[in-house]
Protein backbone atom coordinates (compact mmCIF):
# COMPACT_ATOMS: atom_id res chain seq x y z
CA UNK A 1 0.00 0.00 0.00
CA UNK A 2 2.52 2.57 -1.20
CA UNK A 3 0.69 5.83 -1.49
CA UNK A 4 0.51 9.39 -0.35
CA UNK A 5 0.72 9.67 3.45
CA UNK A 6 -1.82 12.49 3.52
CA UNK A 7 -4.29 10.21 1.77
CA UNK A 8 -3.58 7.45 4.30
CA UNK A 9 -4.25 9.83 7.19
CA UNK A 10 -7.44 11.02 5.53
CA UNK A 11 -8.61 7.42 5.07
CA UNK A 12 -7.58 6.61 8.63
CA UNK A 13 -10.13 9.04 10.00
CA UNK A 14 -13.01 8.45 7.69
CA UNK A 15 -12.90 5.11 5.98
CA UNK A 16 -14.38 1.72 6.75
CA UNK A 17 -11.11 -0.08 5.96
CA UNK A 18 -9.32 1.17 9.07
CA UNK A 19 -8.00 -2.31 9.81
CA UNK A 20 -6.22 -2.37 6.44
CA UNK A 21 -4.78 1.09 7.09
CA UNK A 22 -3.58 -0.12 10.46
CA UNK A 23 -1.92 -3.12 8.81
CA UNK A 24 0.03 -0.61 6.74
CA UNK A 25 0.87 1.46 9.83
CA UNK A 26 2.03 -1.66 11.68
CA UNK A 27 4.25 -2.67 8.73
CA UNK A 28 5.75 0.79 8.49
CA UNK A 29 6.27 1.82 12.12
CA UNK A 30 6.53 -1.41 14.15
CA UNK A 31 10.29 -1.61 14.09
CA UNK A 32 11.07 1.90 15.27
CA UNK A 33 8.30 1.81 17.88
CA UNK A 34 9.52 -1.59 19.11
CA UNK A 35 13.05 -0.28 19.68
CA UNK A 36 11.73 2.85 21.36
CA UNK A 37 9.66 0.67 23.73
CA UNK A 38 12.48 -1.82 24.25
CA UNK A 39 14.79 0.98 25.34
CA UNK A 40 12.23 1.89 28.02
CA UNK A 41 11.14 -1.54 29.30
CA UNK A 42 14.29 -3.53 28.30
CA UNK A 43 12.67 -7.01 28.25
CA UNK A 44 11.68 -8.31 24.81
CA UNK A 45 8.45 -9.99 25.95
CA UNK A 46 7.28 -6.85 27.70
CA UNK A 47 8.23 -4.71 24.69
CA UNK A 48 6.17 -6.99 22.46
CA UNK A 49 3.12 -6.70 24.73
CA UNK A 50 3.50 -2.93 24.92
CA UNK A 51 3.82 -2.72 21.13
CA UNK A 52 0.55 -4.63 20.68
CA UNK A 53 -1.21 -2.46 23.26
CA UNK A 54 0.13 0.62 21.49
CA UNK A 55 -1.47 -0.34 18.17
CA UNK A 56 -4.74 -1.43 19.80
CA UNK A 57 -4.90 1.84 21.77
CA UNK A 58 -4.14 3.80 18.60
CA UNK A 59 -6.88 1.91 16.76
CA UNK A 60 -9.51 2.45 19.45
CA UNK A 61 -8.67 6.15 19.84
CA UNK A 62 -8.07 6.99 16.18
CA UNK A 63 -10.97 9.43 16.15
CA UNK A 64 -9.02 11.66 18.54
CA UNK A 65 -6.08 11.94 16.13
CA UNK A 66 -6.15 15.40 14.58
CA UNK A 67 -2.84 15.46 12.67
CA UNK A 68 -2.43 15.89 8.94
CA UNK A 69 1.22 14.99 8.35
CA UNK A 70 3.39 11.92 8.80
CA UNK A 71 5.31 13.77 11.52
CA UNK A 72 2.13 14.20 13.53
CA UNK A 73 1.16 10.55 12.96
CA UNK A 74 4.58 9.40 14.20
CA UNK A 75 4.47 11.76 17.18
CA UNK A 76 1.00 10.43 18.05
CA UNK A 77 2.15 6.79 17.84
CA UNK A 78 5.27 7.58 19.90
CA UNK A 79 3.14 9.33 22.49
CA UNK A 80 0.88 6.29 22.87
CA UNK A 81 3.85 3.91 22.92
CA UNK A 82 5.61 5.99 25.58
CA UNK A 83 2.49 6.18 27.76
CA UNK A 84 1.86 2.43 27.55
CA UNK A 85 5.56 1.65 28.19
CA UNK A 86 5.68 3.94 31.24
CA UNK A 87 2.52 2.22 32.56
CA UNK A 88 4.28 -1.13 32.16
CA UNK A 89 7.29 0.24 34.08
CA UNK A 90 5.00 1.50 36.85
CA UNK A 91 3.65 -2.01 37.35
CA UNK A 92 7.18 -3.14 38.21
CA UNK A 93 7.48 -0.78 41.18
CA UNK A 94 7.41 -2.32 44.66
CA UNK A 95 4.43 -0.19 45.69
CA UNK A 96 2.33 2.53 44.05
CA UNK A 97 4.03 5.37 45.93
CA UNK A 98 7.54 4.34 44.87
CA UNK A 99 9.31 6.55 42.35
CA UNK A 100 9.46 5.37 38.76
CA UNK A 101 13.24 5.62 39.01
CA UNK A 102 13.17 2.90 41.68
CA UNK A 103 12.92 0.31 38.88
CA UNK A 104 16.31 1.37 37.42
CA UNK A 105 18.36 -1.37 39.20
CA UNK A 106 16.02 -4.03 37.79
CA UNK A 107 16.25 -2.57 34.31
CA UNK A 108 20.04 -2.64 34.49
CA UNK A 109 19.92 -6.25 35.73
CA UNK A 110 17.45 -7.22 32.98
CA UNK A 111 19.68 -5.58 30.39
CA UNK A 112 22.62 -7.78 31.37
CA UNK A 113 20.49 -10.81 30.50
CA UNK A 114 19.20 -9.33 27.28
CA UNK A 115 22.54 -8.43 25.70
CA UNK A 116 23.07 -9.87 22.26
CA UNK A 117 26.21 -12.03 21.89
CA UNK A 118 27.07 -10.04 18.77
CA UNK A 119 26.63 -6.67 20.47
CA UNK A 120 29.26 -3.99 20.13
CA UNK A 121 31.13 -3.21 23.39
CA UNK A 122 30.66 0.52 22.98
CA UNK A 123 26.94 0.11 22.35
CA UNK A 124 26.69 -2.02 25.52
CA UNK A 125 28.56 0.57 27.59
CA UNK A 126 26.41 3.35 26.19
CA UNK A 127 23.18 1.47 26.92
CA UNK A 128 24.34 0.71 30.49
CA UNK A 129 24.99 4.40 31.03
CA UNK A 130 21.63 5.37 29.49
CA UNK A 131 19.73 2.91 31.70
CA UNK A 132 21.24 4.47 34.80
CA UNK A 133 19.68 7.84 33.96
CA UNK A 134 16.45 9.03 35.60
CA UNK A 135 13.43 8.06 33.47
CA UNK A 136 12.69 11.59 32.22
CA UNK A 137 16.26 12.19 31.07
CA UNK A 138 16.47 8.70 29.58
CA UNK A 139 13.31 9.27 27.59
CA UNK A 140 14.54 12.56 26.13
CA UNK A 141 17.96 11.13 25.38
CA UNK A 142 16.50 8.08 23.63
CA UNK A 143 14.11 10.11 21.51
CA UNK A 144 16.80 12.61 20.55
CA UNK A 145 19.83 10.37 20.13
CA UNK A 146 18.41 7.04 18.93
CA UNK A 147 15.15 8.10 17.27
CA UNK A 148 16.68 11.36 15.97
CA UNK A 149 13.54 13.37 16.68
CA UNK A 150 13.60 17.13 16.97
CA UNK A 151 12.95 18.80 20.32
CA UNK A 152 9.62 20.07 18.93
CA UNK A 153 8.57 16.49 18.17
CA UNK A 154 9.79 15.29 21.56
CA UNK A 155 7.81 18.10 23.16
CA UNK A 156 4.68 16.88 21.35
CA UNK A 157 5.32 13.35 22.64
CA UNK A 158 6.24 14.06 26.27
CA UNK A 159 4.23 17.23 26.80
CA UNK A 160 7.27 18.99 28.28
CA UNK A 161 8.47 22.45 27.32
CA UNK A 162 11.41 22.86 24.93
CA UNK A 163 13.62 24.42 27.61
CA UNK A 164 12.94 21.53 30.02
CA UNK A 165 13.71 19.00 27.31
CA UNK A 166 16.95 20.73 26.33
CA UNK A 167 18.04 20.91 29.96
CA UNK A 168 17.20 17.22 30.48
CA UNK A 169 19.08 16.27 27.31
CA UNK A 170 22.08 18.37 28.34
CA UNK A 171 22.28 16.71 31.76
CA UNK A 172 21.69 13.27 30.27
CA UNK A 173 24.52 13.69 27.73
CA UNK A 174 26.85 15.00 30.43
CA UNK A 175 26.14 12.07 32.75
CA UNK A 176 26.56 9.55 29.93
CA UNK A 177 29.90 11.07 28.89
CA UNK A 178 31.15 10.87 32.48
CA UNK A 179 29.91 7.31 32.83
CA UNK A 180 31.41 6.13 29.55
CA UNK A 181 34.73 7.83 30.32
CA UNK A 182 34.69 6.02 33.66
CA UNK A 183 34.34 2.81 31.72
CA UNK A 184 37.42 3.74 29.66
CA UNK A 185 35.57 4.23 26.41
CA UNK A 186 35.96 7.18 24.14
CA UNK A 187 32.83 9.23 23.55
Amino acid at each position, binding site marked *: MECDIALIIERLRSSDD*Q*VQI*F*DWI*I*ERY*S*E*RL*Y*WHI*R*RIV*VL*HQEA*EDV*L*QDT*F*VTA*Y*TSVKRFRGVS*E*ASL*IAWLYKIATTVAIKALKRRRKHIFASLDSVTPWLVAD*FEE*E*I*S*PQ*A*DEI*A*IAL*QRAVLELPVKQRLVFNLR*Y*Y*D*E*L*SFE*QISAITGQSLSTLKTNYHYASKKIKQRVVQLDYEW
Partner: protein
Amino acid sequence: MSGNSNKSMPYYIKYGAMEQMKCRSKAAVARAALSRSSIVTPWRVTVIVAFAACVIAMLFAYIENREHIYYEILLRQMEQAPEEYIYELAADVVEYPEEIIWY
Protein backbone atom coordinates in the same frame (compact mmCIF):
# COMPACT_ATOMS: atom_id res chain seq x y z
CA MET B 1 10.76 13.67 10.22
CA SER B 2 13.91 11.71 10.17
CA GLY B 3 13.72 7.97 9.96
CA ASN B 4 14.69 5.59 12.71
CA SER B 5 18.37 5.64 13.42
CA ASN B 6 20.58 2.74 12.45
CA LYS B 7 22.62 3.11 15.65
CA SER B 8 23.36 -0.36 16.86
CA MET B 9 21.28 -1.70 19.70
CA PRO B 10 22.96 -4.24 21.96
CA TYR B 11 19.71 -6.08 22.78
CA TYR B 12 19.20 -9.67 21.75
CA ILE B 13 16.27 -10.30 19.45
CA LYS B 14 15.48 -13.65 17.89
CA TYR B 15 15.65 -13.92 14.10
CA GLY B 16 12.17 -13.38 12.63
CA ALA B 17 10.79 -11.95 15.89
CA MET B 18 9.99 -8.61 14.25
CA GLU B 19 7.79 -10.24 11.62
CA GLN B 20 6.04 -12.30 14.30
CA MET B 21 5.38 -9.14 16.31
CA LYS B 22 3.89 -7.42 13.27
CA CYS B 23 1.55 -10.40 12.71
CA ARG B 24 0.49 -10.42 16.37
CA SER B 25 -0.12 -6.67 16.35
CA LYS B 26 -2.23 -6.97 13.20
CA ALA B 27 -4.22 -9.80 14.82
CA ALA B 28 -4.71 -7.74 17.99
CA VAL B 29 -6.02 -4.78 15.96
CA ALA B 30 -8.34 -7.12 14.01
CA ARG B 31 -9.68 -8.48 17.31
CA ALA B 32 -10.22 -4.93 18.57
CA ALA B 33 -12.09 -4.14 15.35
CA LEU B 34 -14.30 -7.22 15.81
CA SER B 35 -15.13 -6.37 19.40
CA ARG B 36 -15.85 -2.76 18.41
CA SER B 37 -18.34 -3.82 15.73
CA SER B 38 -19.93 -6.49 17.92
CA ILE B 39 -23.27 -5.82 19.64
CA VAL B 40 -21.93 -7.43 22.79
CA THR B 41 -19.25 -5.08 24.05
CA PRO B 42 -17.72 -5.18 27.55
CA TRP B 43 -19.28 -1.79 28.27
CA ARG B 44 -22.76 -2.94 27.26
CA VAL B 45 -22.42 -6.17 29.24
CA THR B 46 -21.44 -4.14 32.32
CA VAL B 47 -24.48 -1.87 31.96
CA ILE B 48 -26.86 -4.82 31.46
CA VAL B 49 -25.43 -6.74 34.43
CA ALA B 50 -25.62 -3.64 36.66
CA PHE B 51 -29.22 -3.00 35.58
CA ALA B 52 -30.19 -6.64 36.18
CA ALA B 53 -28.57 -6.54 39.62
CA CYS B 54 -30.58 -3.40 40.50
CA VAL B 55 -33.84 -5.00 39.35
CA ILE B 56 -33.11 -8.19 41.33
CA ALA B 57 -32.26 -6.17 44.45
CA MET B 58 -35.50 -4.18 44.11
CA LEU B 59 -37.56 -7.36 43.62
CA PHE B 60 -35.93 -8.98 46.61
CA ALA B 61 -36.60 -5.91 48.75
CA TYR B 62 -40.23 -5.85 47.58
CA ILE B 63 -40.75 -9.55 48.34
CA GLU B 64 -39.15 -9.11 51.75
CA ASN B 65 -41.39 -6.16 52.63
CA ARG B 66 -44.53 -7.11 50.72
CA GLU B 67 -46.39 -8.30 53.82
CA HIS B 68 -45.64 -5.09 55.71
CA ILE B 69 -46.94 -3.06 52.83
CA TYR B 70 -50.11 -5.15 52.71
CA TYR B 71 -50.75 -4.72 56.44
CA GLU B 72 -50.10 -0.99 56.27
CA ILE B 73 -52.77 -0.69 53.60
CA LEU B 74 -55.21 -2.72 55.68
CA LEU B 75 -54.51 -0.65 58.81
CA ARG B 76 -55.08 2.56 56.84
CA GLN B 77 -58.38 1.13 55.57
CA MET B 78 -59.32 0.25 59.12
CA GLU B 79 -58.69 3.80 60.29
CA GLN B 80 -61.02 5.15 57.65
CA ALA B 81 -63.55 2.36 57.60
CA PRO B 82 -67.02 2.60 59.13
CA GLU B 83 -67.49 0.83 62.44
CA GLU B 84 -69.35 -2.17 60.97
CA TYR B 85 -66.50 -3.12 58.68
CA ILE B 86 -63.71 -2.87 61.27
CA TYR B 87 -64.08 -6.47 62.40
CA GLU B 88 -64.24 -7.67 58.84
CA LEU B 89 -61.00 -5.88 57.99
CA ALA B 90 -59.35 -6.92 61.23
CA ALA B 91 -59.89 -10.53 60.25
CA ASP B 92 -57.35 -10.04 57.48
CA VAL B 93 -54.78 -8.53 59.82
CA VAL B 94 -54.94 -10.70 62.89
CA GLU B 95 -55.07 -14.44 62.92
CA TYR B 96 -57.88 -15.51 65.19
CA PRO B 97 -58.47 -19.00 66.48
CA GLU B 98 -60.46 -21.05 63.98
CA GLU B 99 -63.33 -21.70 66.36
CA ILE B 100 -64.41 -18.05 66.40
CA ILE B 101 -67.24 -17.62 63.94
CA TRP B 102 -67.71 -14.11 62.72
CA TYR B 103 -70.95 -14.28 60.87
